[in-house]
């Protein structure tokens, strides 16, 4: 049983890490602010969630898991809110999204 | 009053007088009365001490001890007694003169003038009665500072320039050289007391003593040994009474007095005689005598000529001190008094001429003796005394100096005395000649816009009174030199 949980937790952890990595690559590769924001927000929520889940599995039924749950709770609220605020601010700052010129024509 | 308290009073009285003078600043007559009263009292106080001193007692009192081993204290000894008598007596005369002079010139800030004058005199008293070198140094600096406002009394750019030089030279030499010498002496001996026979003998090598002597002689800038003499002509921007009392008597004599004190009580004559540097310094003084006299020859401004003459005469005294013989010391002490009377007379005359005719240049004085007979007669007496012709006081001091030079077989010194006598004659007698024997040319009567009331006749009576008194003193001291002579002989401890 323990081995199963252990392996499972590592799968979660690694999966989370991959999501985070992808998000980071997205930040670097995407062309403009909004798309980058998109990449990071989506991947981060998922990645962080997976990492937390993995950690919870390792922690078992203890105070640590409760704390991790709380963190998860905070994360799912704050992450999107922050991204929303950022996008809103960019929009207010008259930042135009980059649009593919071929399509526009 | 016990002698100790009298000593204290002598110093404190003039230092406290400004309070009274300032309090009376709205009422000129009481204010001047206060000055006169103070000076009179001071002289009486000082005079009351001289008996004790002649009988051999040395009233002493200690006031404070700012640093361990360094006291502010007073002790009266013959040389100081002599200096104090001179300064306090001439203060009375100068006060009288000042009143006449300042009022006729409508000078501003008379209250502060009298106040600082009193402080300067107090400092001179402090120097005279100083019981140790530290006290002397304190009052030496106080004298510099209290005379600074007097030098710059006029308050214009000229005065400021002169004041700067005055302060720069006097504070500069005293702080860098004299203070260094003091600190050094103190660190070597642990004391700065004046002791008969000196405090340095046996403590330092002749080499160090030589350096110290150089520091002392040049550090005492008030003695105006070249090359630290330029402050004296610069100080001539002061009102004439200031030049008269301070820069012919109190300040400069304080300088040479300090030199004598250092020679007698810090080094000791016997010790000093063995230091080779002494002789060299004497030659410097001798050179100063001659050079200053030559410069004096070329001055057209009367006060400046007198100032250069003072430089020359001061070095007489320094030279005397450096002859390191009792006779020389006697001569030096006597010259302090004799030159004091003569030079103050000459300055009074210069001031009187300025007051009466607004003239400062010698070349403008043609025939002035006819308009101002009293003044010019007094001037003649002073000039004769400076040259050393009997029956004036100058003869006596020169006599002793010459004796001292001969005793030590210093041909150079003797030669210099003779030479400078000739030079003195060369720069003073022409003035007398011009004043009495040349016909007045354009200047006196026909100057346009000139106030005729002033031109015709003498200066204000108070001025004339003062200069007559000092001229009479110059003559009297020739016939009655006992008081100063007794004091000096007691100091040198023997008969002439």
């Amino acid at each position, binding site marked *: 049983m323990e081995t199963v949980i252990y392996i499972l937790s590592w799968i979660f952890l690694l999966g989370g890490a991959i999501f985070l990595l992808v998000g980071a690559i997205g930040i670097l590769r995407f062309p403009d602010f909004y798309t980058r924001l998109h990449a990071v927000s989506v991947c981060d929520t998922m990645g962080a969630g997976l990492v937390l889940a993995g950690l919870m599995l390792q922690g078992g039924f203890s105070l640590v898991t409760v704390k991790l749950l709380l963190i998860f709770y905070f994360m799912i609220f704050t992450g999107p809110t922050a991204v929303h605020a950022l996008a809103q601010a960019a929009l207010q700052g008259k930042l135009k999204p980059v649009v593919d010129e071929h399509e526009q024509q | 009053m016990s002698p100790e308290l009298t000593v204290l009073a002598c110093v404190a009285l003039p230092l406290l007088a400004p309070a009274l003078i300032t309090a009376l600043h709205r009422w000129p007559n009481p204010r001047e009365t206060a000055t006169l009263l103070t000076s009179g009292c001071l002289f009486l106080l000082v005079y009351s001490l001289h008996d004790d001193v002649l009988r051999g007692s040395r009233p002493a009192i200690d006031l404070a001890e700012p640093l*361990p081993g360094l006291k502010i204290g007073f002790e009266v000894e013959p040389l100081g007694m002599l200096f104090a008598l001179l300064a306090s007596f001439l203060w009375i005369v100068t006060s009288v003169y000042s009143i006449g002079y300042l009022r006729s010139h409508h000078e501003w800030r008379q209250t502060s003038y009298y106040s600082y004058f009193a402080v300067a005199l107090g400092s001179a008293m402090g120097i005279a009665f100083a019981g140790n070198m530290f006290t002397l140094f304190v009052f030496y600096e106080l004298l510099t500072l209290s005379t600074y406002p007097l030098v710059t009394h006029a308050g214009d750019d000229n005065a400021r320039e002169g004041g700067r030089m005055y302060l720069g030279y006097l504070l500069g030499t005293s*702080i860098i050289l004299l203070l260094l010498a003091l*600190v050094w002496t103190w660190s070597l001996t642990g004391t700065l007391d004046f002791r008969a026979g000196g405090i340095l003998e046996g403590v330092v090598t002749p080499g160090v003593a030589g350096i110290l002597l150089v520091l002392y002689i040049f550090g005492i800038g008030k003695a105006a040994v070249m090359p630290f003499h330029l402050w004296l002509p610069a100080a001539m921007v002061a009102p004439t009474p200031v030049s008269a009392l301070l820069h012919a008597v109190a300040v400069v004599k304080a300088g040479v007095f300090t030199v004598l004190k250092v020679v007698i009580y810090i080094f000791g004559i016997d010790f000093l005689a063995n230091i080779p540097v002494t002789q060299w310094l004497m030659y410097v003084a001798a050179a100063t005598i001659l050079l200053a006299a030559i410069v004096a020859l070329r001055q057209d401004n009367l006060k400046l000529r007198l100032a250069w003459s003072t430089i020359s005469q001061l070095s007489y005294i320094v030279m005397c001190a450096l002859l390191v013989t009792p006779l020389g010391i006697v001569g030096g002490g006597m010259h302090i008094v004799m030159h004091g009377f003569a030079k103050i007379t000459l300055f009074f005359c210069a001031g009187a001429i300025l007051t009466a005719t607004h003239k400062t240049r010698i070349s403008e004085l043609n025939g002035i003796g006819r308009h101002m007979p009293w003044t010019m007669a007094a001037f003649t007496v002073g000039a004769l005394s400076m040259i050393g012709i009997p029956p004036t006081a100058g003869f006596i001091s020169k006599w002793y100096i010459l004796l001292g030079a001969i005793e030590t077989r210093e041909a150079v010194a003797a030669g210099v005395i003779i030479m400078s006598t000739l030079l003195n004659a060369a720069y003073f007698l022409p003035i007398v000649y011009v004043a009495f024997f040349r016909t007045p040319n354009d200047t006196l009567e026909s100057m346009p816009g000139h106030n005729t009331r002033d031109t015709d006749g003498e200066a204000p009576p108070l001025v004339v009174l003062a200069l007559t008194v000092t001229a009479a003193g110059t003559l009297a001291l020739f016939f009655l030199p006992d008081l100063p002579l007794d004091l000096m002989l007691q100091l040198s401890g023997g008969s002439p």
Partner: protein
Amino acid sequence: MLISDLPVLQVVIPLAAAPVCLLLRNPRHAWACALIASWLVLAIALMLVQRVHAVGTLSYAIGAWVAPWGIEYRIDMAGALMVLVVAIIGALVMPFARRSIEHEILEKCTGLFYTCYLLCLCGLLGMVVTGDAFNLFVFLEISSLSSYVLISLGSRRRALTAAYQYLIMGTIGATFILIGVGLLYMMTGTLNMVDLSQRLPEVANTRTIMAAFAFVTVGVSIKLALFPLHQWLPNAYTDAPSVVSAFIAATATKVGVYVLLRFFFTVFGMQFSFDAMHVGEILMLLAVAGILIASLVAVFQDNVKRMLAYSSVAQIGYIILGISMASAAGVSAGMIHLFNHAMIKGALFLAIGCIFLRLGSAELRDMHGLARHMPWTMAAFVAGGLSLIGIPLTSGFISKWYLASAALSGGYWPLVVLILASSLIGLIYMWRVVEVAYFHVPGTMMHKVREAPAVMLIPTWLLIGINLYVGMDASLITDITRQGAEILIGEALQ
């Protein structure tokens, strides 16, 4: 509360008074609060000096945790002297402050001004009495931060840049001290100064300790404005409100010097500092350069406060010069000058404060003929100036005398000449002011100028009085400094 609690009380009283000041709405009340606190501090300081004199070094374990586990307050004779300096200046500046501050800074800031002043006072006192290296850093920061604020309150906008510059340099200095203390702790495991001094000899020849020494020295040198780390000082003193200039000029750098003394002699020990690290030679060189250059720069200043500020840099040079001789005579001379200079500079800056109140300027060109309208103020200025130059019967003379004789006995010939000659440069710059104030014809603006109020003149003259008293009878102060120097040197010799 007993007599034995005095060491901590003198720091806690201003510290407690500061929040009270913040609460008081009325600036007058805040002023009264600060006044009472600073007078209490003075009373305690006097009692402390007397107690240290009677029973020797005082030690107070805060929280009853004995050193090195707890923080210790330690007052020996040198510390007591410093406490006295700070307390005297603090107590005399306060009565002066009310009028001056009402005139110079905005009304809504006055209450806060007193809060910051009290904090600064508390920080300086804490630095002096603490026996713990890290606690020193904390109180250093209290005093520094509050002095940045105090300086920034000056009426010109340059005050802001001056305060900012001071903040940057001060923080760099403090961080250097922190690094040094950290390295010391790393090698010894303790922060208590006495404990440090006992444990250091074992590790004294390690490179870490040498680096620690260098960092502490540089850090403290910035705080005390040792040439050439003095750049913050002229601006800060020039543009701060007059009261602040007086208070900080008289205390802050002096406390810095004291901290340096503590580190050199108590913590690192004389042998390490002077024999192994050769700090004496370096300091002497810097002190000489500082004295000469800063004095010369002072001559060319047209703002009197700036001139005094440069003169402060030079005077700090004298103090350091005394210390750099590493002899009991030298250290004691340095401490005498430390005390005297605090009193002199305090008085001079207060006099300038009086002038500023009436003129609204400290520029030389605005002071033409000022002496006729403000005779007492200018007389105080002249008296302070004479003391700065070192005229006999003033305290400046005493310190120059001791410095010169210490240099003589140490065989430093050229230094004696330098000490004496540089006082002449002092004469030049002081006399520029005197000439302008006494000899120039007053301008038209001058007619409205009146003498400063008595509440400002009295503290100024009290400081001048202290100067003159020390000049007349220095035995009290030389006694204290001699004991202080002996303790410092003696500890090093053990």
